[in-house]
């Protein structure tokens, strides 16, 4: 199908041109366009800098240490990768509640005795296939089964968790010694950073390119902005929806590899409540919950904000319950700011 002109017609009224990948001057090749065309991430960057300042002032020795920086990035990697997939789903007008469970299922499946006996590469492949497979199932239920995304992925949330419990017999499955290549992803450092951080960066960069510089990305905005217009413009909306959830599942599979590396285990308890963290990070990252508008960079900044808050709280000896309150407050403030930005003419 031809994509020329699709975007103009596929654009929903809400997806203001400033926010779309077509915002760059026409005729300029994508590698020449600036990565940011406006200042919409300024608020988040400021928030991050503010949090860093708080850390540097309250815990000057510990916060600025290399160990802490590495620790923050490693912890952000798991949820960060999931968030990239979630960003696509939400921009495409859906929501994926199953991310935490699917990651748990993928980690459990990848650490079964059967899979482990074939070695680390098969384990990694298995995690990705299981994740993507779960995403495809959700996508099919939504686009061809006509289930509301909320319901379909809620079903996947509980079913995947149950299946993970069943597969693992509710036990924690250790990554065996001979598959240490998986664990080494978090212990081997290149230029001071563990490999899992590079996986995170690679997924983030790939996500950014996919969203901003490809047909797939343009179609995602179109489908999320106004599915009917997108359909009239010749986009196979149903197929695209399946692909979006498959992408989210794929990211869960990658996250499963990271969590196996981090914890040296596959477990049905992994990723509990990750769906809330991922969705919250996407929302405070500036992506509209109604679809059609959003950015990968914003989501990643959102993840970093949350990871930093947890880090700062523990560094200062504060309790978990206070962290939850702070997170809640941040979500509310971010969404309120977003709404103001929407109301103001762009």
């Amino acid at each position: 199908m031809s994509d020329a002109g699709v975007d103009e017609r596929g654009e929903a009224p809400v997806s203001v041109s400033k926010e779309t990948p077509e915002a760059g001057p026409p005729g300029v090749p994508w590698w020449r366009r600036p990565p940011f065309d406006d200042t919409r991430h300024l608020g988040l960057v400021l928030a991050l800098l503010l949090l860093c300042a708080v850390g540097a002032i309250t815990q000057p020795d510990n916060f600025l240490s290399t160990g802490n920086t590495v620790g923050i990035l490693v912890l952000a990697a798991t949820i960060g990768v999931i968030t990239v997939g979630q960003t696509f789903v939400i921009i495409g007008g859906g929501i994926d509640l199953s991310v935490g469970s699917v990651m748990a299922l993928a980690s459990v499946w990848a650490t079964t005795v059967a899979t482990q006996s074939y070695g680390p590469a098969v384990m990694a492949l298995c995690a990705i296939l299981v994740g993507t497979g779960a995403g495809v199932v959700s996508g099919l239920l939504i686009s061809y089964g006509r289930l509301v995304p909320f319901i379909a992925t809620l079903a996947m949330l509980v079913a995947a968790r149950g299946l993970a419990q069943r597969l693992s017999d509710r036990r924690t499955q250790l990554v065996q010694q001979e598959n240490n290549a998986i664990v080494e992803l978090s212990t081997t450092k290149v230029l001071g950073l563990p490999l899992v951080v590079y996986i995170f960066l690679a997924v983030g960069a790939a996500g950014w390119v996919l969203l901003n510089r490809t047909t797939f990305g343009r179609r995602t905005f179109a489908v999320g902005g106004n599915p009917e217009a997108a359909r009239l413009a010749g986009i196979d909306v149903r197929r695209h929806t399946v692909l979006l959830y498959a992408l989210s599942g794929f990211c869960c599979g990658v996250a499963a590899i990271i969590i196996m590396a981090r914890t040296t285990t596959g477990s049905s308890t992994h990723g509990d409540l990750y769906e809330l963290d991922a969705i919250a990070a996407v929302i405070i990252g500036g992506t509209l919950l109604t679809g059609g508008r959003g950015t990968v960079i914003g989501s990643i900044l959102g993840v970093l904000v949350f990871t930093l808050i947890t880090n700062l709280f523990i560094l200062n000896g504060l309790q978990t319950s206070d962290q939850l309150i702070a997170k809640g407050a941040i979500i509310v403030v971010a969404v309120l700011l977003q709404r103001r930005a929407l109301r103001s003419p762009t």
Partner: protein
Amino acid sequence: MRDQSSPSRPSRRGVLFGGAVVAAGTLAAACTSNAEPSDGGTAAQGGTLQGDNDKPGKKVTIGFSAPAADHGWMAAIAKDAEAQAKKYTDVDWKPVEPTNDINQQISAVESLIQAKVNALVILPNDGEQLNQVARKAMDAGIPVINLDRVFPDKLSYRTWLGGDNYGMGVSAGHYIGKKLKDAGTSNPVIVEVQGIATLPLTQERSKGFADTLKTYGFEVTDQQAAEFTVESGNRVTTNLLSAHKKIDALWNHDDDQGVGVLAAITASDRDEFFMVGGAGSANAMREIKKGGVLEATVTYPPTMAGSAVKLARLIAQGKGMADLVELQVPQSITLASETITKANVDTYMPLGFES
């Protein structure tokens, strides 16, 4: 022990949705073999009661109800009880489906009362909420052996048998306090990775720990709560290690989450401190044997389930405990929290449970 306050959220929602996906998944699950490394022989204990109590006696039926096996520890409870019961030819074993749903557990216990079993072993999801149905059993003349989580009403059980959460803190406190004192450490940095902070059992553990450290003139520098999962243990410890450039000792309340704690320590390349675990999993014991950061763990043994079955049988048969002068089984038994180190790990290994 673990999930007092967290009745399984997913499984309840699971009743509503996703049946079809579960069915498809089950089929797939059947295709992936998942034989766990054989359980560390949790059932290997036995024959500890002296005298002729183990000889076949009057035929008795024992009912059993416990929460679902969400953790290695709870899985070991069910397995251990069953293994012990199967050892006796005079015991008719009647377990009901394990569940984290309080209402389901109540009706399961009611069905056992209807079945007129001779004794009941109950590990309640919540002692307060199961109290009434236990009382009903007692009123119907069925002795209830209350396992671990205690019923508030003493009329609701014949005998209570359980672990000592405060004692876990005491054992961990003694190991850490003594070692640091002997090394002449002053103002040591002692950190604590708790389980779910809101649970009374967690608070008891922490209190025992703090009280014991005080006798050495030490105090806990920092404590953070995890959620009894590998992932939460890993996350909290990663941050805790950043918070303290130098640590002298770390106590982690739970060996299941301890796997994640250890992974965080390994990833950080830190080894200036030593760590003590909690519960006594086979995995932790292997780490202790190997020698490394994890030097000791303090027990909260799931073998208490096997002991409870033994006591249920004795009570139902009207026997006493041969080591005591008493004619009957005592009303309350609190297990000791023992400290497992490299020196005695081989003795305890057969009792370790796989997490």
